[in-house]
Each structure stands twice: as C-alpha cells, then as structure tokens.
C-alpha cells in the first residue's frame, strides 16, 4: 500500500466506525452486567429446528441440548411450553430467565423432568440449581 492508499484505508475504517449507531455500543456496554460468574455455562450442543407432523398438522417441535461438564439439559419447545429433562436425572429447581429477569420457576423431579412456560418471545435462558450444580444455559432466541 502506498502512503496515499493507507491514508484512504484509514479514513474509510474510521468513517465506518463513526457510522455505527451509538445504541449498538450502549447495548454492548450494558451487556457486561449480565455476566454470570457463579454458574457454569451449558453450551448449546444440538439444535434440531425440525418440523414434525403431517402436512395437516404443521406443528414444529424444536429440540435443544445444552451440555455442561457433568450434565446435559435437553429441552423441547412447543408453542406454549418448554418440556425438559436433566441428564443424568437429579432433582432441583429450574428458572426461565429473559433479559428482564426470572419469568418462570419449576421443580425438576426425581427423573429429571420439568415443564416451564409460557415461552417468552425473544431471548431467554435456563438457570438450574440441582444439588451442587449451578448451571446456566446459553441464550436461546425463538
């Protein structure tokens, strides 16, 4: 690159940064407050966004798997609820959280099963407390 080219490239790079709406940065700075340091993150390891049923019954069930070190949380999303299981099974308490906070709480039974609902629009995540384990899933967007 010649000096003139590098000056032009710099000018373009700085112009691109100046064009970013301030809201995009504000939202970014605010996101840091959501940092969870007390819970282990369960990463999304499978997402089968697969339509099931016949053509006459076009209900779509989305199945998600979140993997933490010692357990996984499997969930199925239907139109009105979230059905899930903690594997290996262990009883506990699970919360549905959106960006505003906790929106639903359910007990996880001896077989690891739980039902949460209704499913919020937009982003949400699950927060599980079962025995010694405190696990939070990645954010899910519907």
């Amino acid at each position: 690159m010649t000096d003139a080219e590098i000056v032009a490239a710099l000018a373009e790079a700085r112009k691109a940064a100046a064009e970013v709406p301030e809201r995009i940065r504000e939202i970014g700075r605010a996101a840091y407050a959501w940092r969870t340091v007390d819970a282990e993150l369960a990463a999304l390891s499978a997402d089968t966004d697969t339509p099931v049923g016949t053509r006459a019954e076009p209900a779509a069930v989305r199945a998600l798997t979140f993997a933490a070190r010692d357990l996984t949380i499997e969930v199925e999303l239907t139109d009105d609820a979230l059905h899930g299981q903690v594997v290996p099974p262990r009883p506990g308490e699970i919360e549905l959280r959106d960006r505003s906070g906790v929106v639903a709480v359910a007990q996880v039974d001896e077989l690891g099963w739980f039902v949460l609902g209704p499913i919020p629009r937009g982003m949400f995540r699950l927060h599980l407390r079962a025995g010694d384990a405190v696990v939070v899933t990645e954010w899910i967007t519907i």
Partner: protein
Amino acid sequence: MRDDPSVVDLVVRARHGDARAWDALVDRYAPLVWAICRRFGLGGADAEDVAASVWLRLVERLDTIREPAALPGWLATTVRRECLTALRGRRHQVPVGDESNLDSVDDPAFEELLLAQERHIALRAAFENLPEHCRHLLTLLFDDPPAPYAQISSSTGTPIGAIGPTRRRCLDRLRRDPALAAVAGVEQS
C-alpha cells in the same frame, strides 16, 4: 481470521471483571456487528435485537474463549446467525427476497466483507496506538479533499516543509504496529 495481541489482553481483563476492557472490546467490534446487520438489510430495532443477543453471548463466552484471536470469526458467525433468525421472524409479517445466497456457508461476498472488517479493525487499532501529534495530523489528511498544508501547519504547529516527512514517519510507525502485522497488504510499496 487473525487478530492482534492486544485483544488477548482485553479478553483476559474483561474476564477478571474489568468493565473498561469489556467496553474496549465493544468499541472494537461494534462496526463489525453493524456492518453485518446492514449486509442483511437490518437496521433500527432489528439490528439492536441482533446486537443485544450477540453481546450477551459474547459476555457469557468470555471465560471459555481459548483463542481470543478467533474472536472476529466467532462474532461474524454469531451475528450472521442472529440476523438470519431475525429475518425468519420477520418473514411471518413481511415477505423478504431470495435468502438462499444469504444462507450459504461459502459466500464469497460475506468472506470479503469479513476481510474488509478485519482490516478496518486492525487499522483503527493501530491508529489509536499512534502518538497524539500523528493522530491529529492524519485526521486532517482524512478530509476529502485533504486540508491544505497551510491550514495543517497552523493547526498542528508543524512547519509546512515538515508536514510531508512527519506524515511519512507517522505512516511508517502505523505500518509497524503489531495490530497491522496480521493484515496483509499494508507494507510500503
């Protein structure tokens, strides 16, 4: 995509609770997030939703990022996925055009956008590392057309005859910045 060593430092500091390091990461990558949103035709509230989701995912990934250098690539993939989700949601209300090319994994135009963004990020980072007098001088030269030397001279206190050599020294310094070392094509030609 590669990234310069200062990102490693920012990620480590943000991981240990330094909010200013996090803000610096946001500043650094906000243009990448925005550029991809624009590429998918998203702006306003749609782009803000995408950004919110991407930043939250990045926050929770802080502890598990092993290769901070891979961050731009991870961000780009995540922004793209969130844009596609936003477009799917919108499709229920408003028909959108043919998205098949947007969905494609091997999208040369998208790769090109990423490379351009990577270069922008490195250039801005290197610029920020320059001494104040260099940044001031170069900013005056960014104007299109560039400010006349007489004006630059009075604004910077640099004699007219020294502007050219100073500019060259500043640009050489910029080229040597480690942030730019990872980006091909900036060597002096």
